[in-house]
């Protein structure tokens, strides 16, 4: 148990400090934003067929669907020549020439060149690493599963007072919980990550092969993303499983605001302290290491 606890402590620190989840989520959010910019909602069927809409309630006897517009161009107005999805994107002009794909299915590929550690560097440099993600398109929205690979991505992990050198190299998979619309704020969702690779932080490297879930907070004014809760899925060592031959797991959680920590498994939830090296219930200490 001591070795497991040490590993948990190491993982908690590196995942929280490196903010690898924020780096990946930012790329997904950017892709979602691009998709939203090319999306037009319109009624499919009913009396308002083809009219703009926000929800199904706007389409009597029909449904409000998300259509993807590619190659639309503003004609006239302030944005002449710019890409557009509908006339609303072209003040004093019109959007034309685009091809509309109704409620499309398919996939998006987002390729992101990492910022690197040099604050003074303004040009994109693939030597700083690349994040390559695949998202699925389901009826114009984004499917719950995102996957891809991160190739030696170097990025700054920034706090209010400091700037740290972080990196990640390896595979990545993300589960958003459910299909999301192009306007859903991803930072409001509990999101599960699977990472298999090497997390780097300030010169130290940790090899990881772990699933964890985050609950985030997003300050719209400042754009800062905060970590509220981190849950790590831990595999119980073979010598500690209750049923020999079984693979058993528990979740170790960490609440940032209250500093509360604990274990949640099939038998219940227990408060723990990695510093004091014990876990307990209200009635007393369960075990220590």
């Amino acid at each position, binding site marked *: 148990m001591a070795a497991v606890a040490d590993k948990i402590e190491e993982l908690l620190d590196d995942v929280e400090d490196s903010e690898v989840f924020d780096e990946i989520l930012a790329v997904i959010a*950017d892709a979602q934003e691009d998709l939203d910019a090319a999306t037009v909602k319109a009624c499919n069927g009913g009396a308002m067929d083809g009219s703009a809409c926000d929800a199904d309630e706007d389409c009597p006897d029909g449904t409000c669907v998300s259509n993807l517009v590619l190659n639309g161009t503003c004609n006239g107005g302030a944005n002449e020549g710019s890409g557009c999805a509908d006339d609303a994107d072209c003040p004093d002009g019109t959007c034309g020439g685009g091809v509309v794909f109704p409620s499309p299915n398919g996939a998006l590929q987002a390729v992101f060149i990492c910022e690197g550690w040099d604050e003074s560097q303004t040009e994109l440099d693939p030597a700083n690493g690349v994040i390559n993600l695949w998202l699925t398109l389901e009826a114009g929205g984004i499917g719950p599963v995102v996957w891809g690979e991160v190739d030696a991505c170097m990025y700054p992990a920034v706090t209010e007072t400091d700037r740290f050198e972080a990196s990640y190299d390896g595979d990545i998979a993300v589960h958003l919980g459910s299909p999301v619309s192009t306007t859903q704020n991803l930072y409001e969702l509990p999101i599960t990550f699977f990472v298999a690779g090497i997390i780097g932080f300030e010169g130290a490297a940790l090899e990881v092969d772990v699933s964890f879930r985050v609950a985030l907070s997003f300050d719209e004014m400042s754009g800062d993303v905060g970590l509220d809760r981190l849950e790590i899925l831990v595999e119980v060592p073979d010598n500690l499983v209750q049923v020999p031959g079984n693979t058993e797991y528990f979740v170790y959680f960490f609440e940032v605001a209250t500093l509360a920590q604990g274990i949640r498994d099939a038998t219940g939830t227990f408060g723990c302290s990695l510093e004091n090296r014990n876990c307990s219930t209200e009635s007393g200490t369960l075990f220590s290491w």
Partner: protein
Amino acid sequence: MGLTPSSARAYHTYEERLLDSTAYSLQRRRIRIGLFKLSYGIIDQLEITTYTMPWLLGLIFEDVAPNLELQSTFYDRRRLALSASFGFLTGTIEQIENVAATKARYFFFPVSLAASVRINSDVRLHIGGMFTGINGDANSKPGATDVEGAAAVDILQFWAMTEWRLSRVVAFTFTVRWVPWVSDIIVRGSLDSDNPDVGANLKLEFTDLNNAFAVIPGFVFSWDRANIRLGVGYGDFFVEGFAVVVPGSVLSNVSPEFDIFVRF
């Protein structure tokens, strides 16, 4: 003495056979010049063809649209002939509207097999199948931003034609064409070329063409050198030279067949 007038060569005879939608090829050093096709018999079993309409489109859009088809009648006996053909067609269409310039390139790759069966001296049955791979991509430039997209679709079509020689000049044909399968169209487009570079692969169903068909009765008139093929039927429009199908709703379900050509 029997003198065979040279002008008899073009009439419906055992040697002079229909070429369109059949397994037969032009004989060696024979030429066909027509409204829609230019063909040359390299050897008895091998014919090379170029379709005229793509070149005409290329002239209109000021860009060449090369296309070529090779057909080989690799088996030709009294009652049965078999052929295989493959070709390519590529071209570019450019459209400039206000500040946007869009250039679309297309590439067709049809491959076909055909069989012709001589039932008797007056009746022949011809059947065949064609698989066409189609790729296209578009490059659009609104202002300083490049937006690119590409699409791909595959089409499988079959045909069967009954040919009934009514006289030396007139042959009646009854053709059935059918598209049993069209692949989903995969369209590739770019949503954003900044950082991150976001590309989209969209899957669309080409429901209009799935099970497209046409039933076309017609006639082929063959004289000295001139030939006319005429027919009108019902269904979708199967376009020769492009190996594609236009949905029947576009032409009110009228499927025409027409060609004029000379053979010598």
